[in-house]
């Protein structure tokens, strides 16, 4: 993590669902409205299932992670996808020694 990353409040977003066009656009649009910045994005199709992981910065986000988590779940339900968000440091603690 560089110095410029220190002011960031990073979280990981996981999007899973049936592949179709427009998913990236819809999710990005939602993030933009919540004032969440995308730091990194990676997406693939695994056995016909769309899987996307995003690293996002919540430093300027409209709500905190707890509220966002519900918003994401509801938004995901509306557009037929499973969307989850969790703090980056949890992953770092669990998976990096």
């Amino acid at each position, binding site marked *: *993590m*560089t110095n410029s*990353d220190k002011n*960031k409040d*990073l979280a*990981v977003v*996981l999007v899973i669902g049936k592949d179709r066009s427009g998913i990236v656009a819809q999710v990005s649009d939602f993030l933009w409205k919540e004032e969440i910045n995308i*730091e*990194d994005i*990676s997406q*693939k199709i695994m056995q016909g299932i769309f*899987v996307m*992981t*995003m*690293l996002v910065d919540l430093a300027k986000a409209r709500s*905190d*992670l*707890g*509220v966002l*988590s519900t918003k994401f779940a509801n938004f995901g339900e509306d557009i037929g996808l499973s969307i*989850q*968000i*969790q*703090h*980056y*440091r*949890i*992953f*770092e*603690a*669990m*998976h*990096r020694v």
Partner: protein
Amino acid sequence: MTLNISLEEIYETYKMTEKEHFDIRAVTLGINLLPCVSDSFATLCERVEKKITTTARHFVKRAEKVDSRFGIPIINKRLTITPAALVLSGALTGNATTDRKHAVAFAELLDKCASEVGVDFLGGYGALAEKGLSYADQTLIDAVPEALGCTEKICGFINLATSKAGINMRGVARIGGVIRDLALNSDNAIGAAKFVVFANAVSDNPFMAGGFHGIQEADNVLNLGISGPGVVRRTVEAAPRDLALDEISELIKKTAFKITRAGELIGRELARDLGVRFGSLDLSLAPTTAVGDSVGRILEAMGLERVGTHGSTAALALLTDAVKKGGLMASSRIGGLSGAFVPVSEDVGLSEAVKCGALTMDKLEAMTTVCSVGLDMIPVPGDTKTTTISAIIADELAIGVMNNKTTAVRLIPVPGKKAGEMVSWGGLLGEAYIVPLHSENSDYFIWRKGQIPAPVTSFRN
């Protein structure tokens, strides 16, 4: 910045919190009440109230904030205090009736403070009496049935044995009656679920009902209890049926490591927010009544038809050890009890095994030689003799003393109920079938009282 966590790792973490109920079971703020000591009961109460309500004023709110920030649920927020017998002793007058009333009033005051700051429970209404009962200890245990019966959030304990001192059998003999009275004094005997008898009690236990703030601790300390039987069960269930047991141990260790690391992160954040010391991290597989959150089911997933059958002790030994090892590798702050709990009424798998007769009192006792606590949340017949309750306690404390480990007893003699009948408390405490006990009495053994000497292994000076 680029995302350097693989998809598999991300998915694994989501699964743990979303589907397998990984949570922070308890954040427990320990408060040292020794500075409040006074020879006037009124002054003592005033100081204690001020101390608790100021120290824990923002505790619940800050815990909720951390919960929300990291997306890992913090289920219970609790307080522990210096053992109440020590805090009270200076204010006792020597008149047994007045002092007993004061001890009950003290519990009511603590209950009021706990409600005011919004915590679920406050633990530490107890005494350390492994070598003898002081006047304050006696006063307090005499007050326990009334004090825990008339309060909502207060949990009590008594430590009656250590590997260094042996077992205080005078205390053990007396506590059988206290537990019976406590059961009689409360609705459906629920008061007895709030009282634990210990051998080798630990001073930094974040779990209730046995938590207290030890005198060797700093003023204000945050301890954290992490759970996750569901996560471990999924890991074991997902393993091939013929996977060797050392490999199973390895899988459990890795899982324990991961959940401990996440727990430590949250504990440190909350301690920093509160401006208190981060104490210890207790990784204990503590079952809840939620289906899947059962330690019994983990043992069954290892290949036992029903928990309680032959092989259960070995399976539990493997589980407890693997959980401890994973936790110890993950954090140098591992403390408390750390291991696997076997609370009968709170664990669906154990409760069912009792119902069908696979799990008996004797097998439970054997299993507690390798679990991290002891005979926990076991409903027994209402007409059980107090000497039998004391004898069960003596057995369990002996296991702790001889094996240099913590053991505890939380028995619930349910009035009017006989072996095999069901008792339901609802909520977190669950429901269970009354466990049958031996009918032969232990009267003369208990009536001897005295002290069971410390084992030879304790003399290391």
